């Protein structure tokens, strides 16, 4: 479990609690964490990230609301067994595709040209 090491916090990129929640969703979508995994305590994660513990509590509350994690009394916070991983993966792929589309449109390239570039990048990656 490496949230505290991998979560980038950008003070100019909106509320920190949103950034933490998004990062956990991203780790799940990428398979870096899986349903059933235990999350660090809010205090440990807060100390690791250098943020206020209440901010992490807020992020966890948001993830609970999204049915991604659950708190088991006395045991800690866990990724739910039925966390909507497939849906999150689809969402993130769409977001990435939309960002690519915006850039391709700005460059004025045709759809076949953009798709060819995308294919090439995927094959290279």
């Amino acid at each position, binding site marked *: 479990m490496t949230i505290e090491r991998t979560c980038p916090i950008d003070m*100019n*990129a909106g*509320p920190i609690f949103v950034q933490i929640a998004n990062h956990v969703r991203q780790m799940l979508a990428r398979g870096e964490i899986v349903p059933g995994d235990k999350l660090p305590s809010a205090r440990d994660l807060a*100390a690791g*990230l*250098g943020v*206020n513990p*209440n901010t992490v509590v807020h992020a966890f509350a948001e993830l609970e609301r999204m049915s991604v994690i659950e708190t088991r009394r006395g045991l800690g916070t866990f990724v739910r067994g039925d966390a909507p991983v497939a849906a999150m993966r689809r969402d993130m792929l769409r977001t990435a595709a939309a960002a690519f589309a915006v850039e391709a449109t700005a460059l004025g390239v045709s759809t076949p040209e953009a798709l060819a570039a995308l294919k090439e990048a995927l094959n290279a990656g």
Partner: protein
Amino acid sequence: MLASLNRATKQYGRTEGVRDLTVEFPPGEVVGVLGLNGSGKSTMLKLLAGLLFPTSGDVAVFDGPARAQRARVVYLGETDALWSWMTPDDAATFMVGLYDDFDVKRYGELLASLAVPRRRTKAMSKGERGRLRLAMALARDAKLYLLDEPLGGIDLLSREKILQSIVRGWHTDETILLSTHEVAEAEGLFERVVYLREGRIALDATAETLRGRGKSVVQTYREVLG
């Protein structure tokens, strides 16, 4: 309210430390006290610590005058008044004699997590002394902590250790007021930021609200105080 200033003014001769300042601090907040040099940060913290008395207005802590609550408030000042012969163990003896709420076990944990060497303070670096002073302050069990520039003039790694110790030691019913010029490093820790200018409040806001508008605490600092 845990602590409050009500129309408080503190004059030093002709200069004013704070002017007609009204602000309240409920329990359970980590507050960044920000401002340029001479903006009144230290004066505000010293008034709350009961170390200064307002020229006019009121300063209340735990519903009593701040002066009567001194033993129950932790204040870490800017000046390093540690005796050069003192070791961290001597400092513990000294603190136990002064304060009923000094927790020796907690102090030991803080010395370890802050990596304070067990030698005399005269043989310590500025960062090590800063970390020792913070351990002495945070080892007290109080509801109000007033930390004036605990990150001032010390190295990056010491600053990170200090911020981590504050995060780990903080209980949700305690209020910490922390003044600093190291705004970028400390901003994640603050729930609320109070910007002072010429002894008055220039802005009092929730940090996440500022960031929700796309502006960091640092950027807001430039806009409000620049």
